């Protein structure tokens, strides 16, 4: 190891065991540089490792600010003092004695860098980017995969902070670094919330520069797109009978996802249509009751359509809705709402005197029942194409799928439909892991956590996210969550994330207590972070580390997707 002192510990400012200032004599020292100092306390040699979190220069020998003009005009001699503040990350041995002013300071490289950031203690180091000095940065896998801690939370302004890009980079590292032992059996569920940015994950990025490839190689990662990806998009809204086509720009390899009415009822997905369960005290109870009744109704039915035998009127003015047993066929979500309205509020023909079926109404006030029906009626517009009676379920099944990564597109859906899809899928994944049906790890990438698990109010989907946050890590369900503003997300969801990442932040947001784990200098820096740089905090390392990550090796839009003109691809496309 080359050992050249870059400066000395300053004596003009306090040197303490936890922080000190250094004067820089030689070379450049910048924020994030890692340094070490050794001090001999009467035979007890203590080595201090630390990270530079402030640097500044001042002209010495000046009295007034305007003396700088004289100095710049070469009229008075001055000395430029170049000093840096170091926050100690580690002492060896752990003796909290202050370092001696005048002790030489060295840049940490190789082993000393590993010691400074505790990389030497990590058994499984997952590469998570580069530090400013060009060395790879790591996260202790044990704090990410659930053994000692789990979950990742990423904050930052949309469009600038590159939250999704960083989440994907983390996934890429998890899958290809070889650090995660059972990577092959790990499954990932990603929700695509913006454009169809994630619909080209399996295509190489043709704008990837050669030097970016080298950066991947330097971390031991392949500069390749994701190998095993399945894409799901909601069906197109307007379409005729029969063929259901996905709403996607990508021509091939995208499946339309939807649920059959029978599965919707049997699996109890109704609550995910209600995001404001707390709005009325009785509504929650009614939702649970109706959900249970629907499940009972669907029991034993094959679907996709639902048959009921207690709807004497049936949907009016239509033929062919009664089957041979005289049961009424419900073949669309709208019909299901009609049926529930009949059961809860009574037949429309009876007018004011109408009353609902007591087995369904659960003794709730008419007002509550009406509110329930009103909400469902509004939902029909939003989820009618997702919950259907004309086709068997084709819902994404991340754990059952052969693909490692399952991208589910939400960006065209209404907020209510997004809630429904996310809630249903999370419940499915979490339920499967709870029952022990899948052994590998499951990663869930979800942006806009503030929408699904807001700080205020309660909703079924928030319950599931809380479950994942609090119990998921022991079950092997790891949430890689992101949001613009952590202050608007349920505290327990953010609080349970062991690894916290911050991209560019809004100035007001950076002042909130949610970011107090960042030292002041890092909070200030978060306001100007460029795209591709993140501040990463993990439990084992006492200071956050600013990391850069390479340009995506996978295409993030159609124009980046390298054209595949191989024979096989053409055959695929032509259906030969």
């Amino acid at each position, binding site marked *: 190891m080359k050992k050249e002192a870059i400066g000395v510990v300053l004596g003009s400012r306090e040197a303490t065991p936890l922080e000190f200032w250094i004067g820089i004599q030689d070379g450049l020292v910048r924020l994030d540089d890692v340094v070490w100092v050794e001090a001999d306390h009467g035979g007890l040699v203590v080595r201090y490792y630390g990270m530079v979190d402030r640097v500044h220069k001042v002209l010495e020998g000046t009295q007034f600010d305007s003396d700088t003009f*004289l100095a710049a005009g*070469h*009229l*008075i001699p*001055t000395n430029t003092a170049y000093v840096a503040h170091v926050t100690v990350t580690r002492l060896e041995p752990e003796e909290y004695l202050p370092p001696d002013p005048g002790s030489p300071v060295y840049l940490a490289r190789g082993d000393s860098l590993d010691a400074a950031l505790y990389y030497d203690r990590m058994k499984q180091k997952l590469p998570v980017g580069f530090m400013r000095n060009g060395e790879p940065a790591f996260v202790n896998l044990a704090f990410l995969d659930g053994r000692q801690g789990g979950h990742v939370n990423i904050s930052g302004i949309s469009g600038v902070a590159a939250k999704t890009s960083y989440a994907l980079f983390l996934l890429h590292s998890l899958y290809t670094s070889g650090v995660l032992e059972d990577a092959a059996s790990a499954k990932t569920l990603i929700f695509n919330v913006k454009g169809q940015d994630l619909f080209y994950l399996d295509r190489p990025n043709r704008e990837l520069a050669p030097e970016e490839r080298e950066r991947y190689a330097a971390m031991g990662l392949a500069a390749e797109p994701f190998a095993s990806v399945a894409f799901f998009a909601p069906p197109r809204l307007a379409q005729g009978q029969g063929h259901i086509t996905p709403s996607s720009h990508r021509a091939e390899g995208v499946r339309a996802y939807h649920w059959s009415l029978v599965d919707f009822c049997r699996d109890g997905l109704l609550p995910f249509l209600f995001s404001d369960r707390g709005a009325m005290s009785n509504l929650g109870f009614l939702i649970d009751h109706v959900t249970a009744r629907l499940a009972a109704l669907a029991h034993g039915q094959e679907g996709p359509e639902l048959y009921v035998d207690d709807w004497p009127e049936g949907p009016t003015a239509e033929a062919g809705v009664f089957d041979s047993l005289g049961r009424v066929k419900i073949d669309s979500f709208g019909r299901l709402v009609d049926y529930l309205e009949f059961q809860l509020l009574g037949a429309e023909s009876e007018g004011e005197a109408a009353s609902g079926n007591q087995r369904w109404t659960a003794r709730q006030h008419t007002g509550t029942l009406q509110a329930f029906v009103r909400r469902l009626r509004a939902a029909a517009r939003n989820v009618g194409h997702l919950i259907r009676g004309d086709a068997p379920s084709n819902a994404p099944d991340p754990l059952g799928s052969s693909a490692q990564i399952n991208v589910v597109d939400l960006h065209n859906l209404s907020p209510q439909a997004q809630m429904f899809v996310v809630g249903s899928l999370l419940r499915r994944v979490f339920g499967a892991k709870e029952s022990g049906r899948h052994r590998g790890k499951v990663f869930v990438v979800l942006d806009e956590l503030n929408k699904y698990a807001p700080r205020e109010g309660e909703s079924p989907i928030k319950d599931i996210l809380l479950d994942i946050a609090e119990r998921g890590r022991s079950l092997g369900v790891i949430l890689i969550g992101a949001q613009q503003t952590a202050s608007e997300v349920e505290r327990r969801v953010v609080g349970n994330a062991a690894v916290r990442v911050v991209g560019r932040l809004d100035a007001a947001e950076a002042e909130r207590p949610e970011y107090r784990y960042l030292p002041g200098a890092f909070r200030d820096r978060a306001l100007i972070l460029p795209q591709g740089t993140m501040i990463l905090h993990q439990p084992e390392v006492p200071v956050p580390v600013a990391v850069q990550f390479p340009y995506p090796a996978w295409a993030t839009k159609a124009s980046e997707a390298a054209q595949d003109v191989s024979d096989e691809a053409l055959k695929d496309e032509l259906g030969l």
Partner: protein
Amino acid sequence: MKPRLRLEVWSPDHAAPEASLAQPLPELQAEPVAADGPWAPKREAAPWTGPLFFVDGRFRTDALIFLDDAPALLASVAVGAVGLEPGRAFYEEAAFAVRRFLVAPPGAWPEPVFSPAPGLDYELVEAGGEPEALRAAAMERRGALEMGLGDGLRARHPGALVLHDGPLHRLPAAATAGRLGFAKTHHRGYLNAEQAALLGELAAGERSPVFTFTRGERRFYSWYLRLPLEPERPYAAAATLLRVETAAPEAEALRLAPVSLGVLPRLASRPFRDPRAPQNLVPVGALERELGRRLGSAGLIRRRLLEHIRREAV
């Protein structure tokens, strides 16, 4: 008639630069140098392209002690130089020196050095018994150090112009080339009343013609120049006046006079940053601060002395 109001620029804490500009002692009466033209303001300035050094020293009395009954002065002297080159202002590190002196009557202190603490060594200087004489002896050393420093600079930088803050009384006769001194205060007059009237007419950046006088056995050439001071106010007559002198022969004096106009006015200090503006030139002010720093903390030295005396007390 109302009295005419004029402001002295220097802070009243310092001795005023003006004394008696127009009452020359008979032995100092100056003669204008005819070769510099008629007795009128002159403003041709010449640039100086080579290196330029300002030399100054700082003197501090650390303590007055008694060796039995004899008073002795402990004084510290720091001398140094600041260099100006196009594009650079710098301290000439080799030129800096800090010396400490114990000035005592002959025979009062037995050893050549008094060392009350590590790194604090006072060289013995023997001088007559009155405190004033002790101080004068120490100042004499300071002057000699400054002149010696200027000699060294000229030896290392043969083409350099060395400017001393203060007159050149102690300049050795062999080392007059390339040396200028400048007086900020005017305790003595050199011009008669008729000649001195010209000084009131000098505008900023102008000088008087060169005149010559003898001091002791030696001949000096000298001239007054007026430094700029903003904002312009009715200041006292000597407020912005600097007297430059050289011990070199007439030809060099005539050559350096326009150079002084090229060099000095742009270095004039301003009242907000220096209580002796504008004559205490900007690089000299910076040098004085640096010298003060190198003298060490007076309080610390006093503490070391006290510790030493308590330890040695009989």
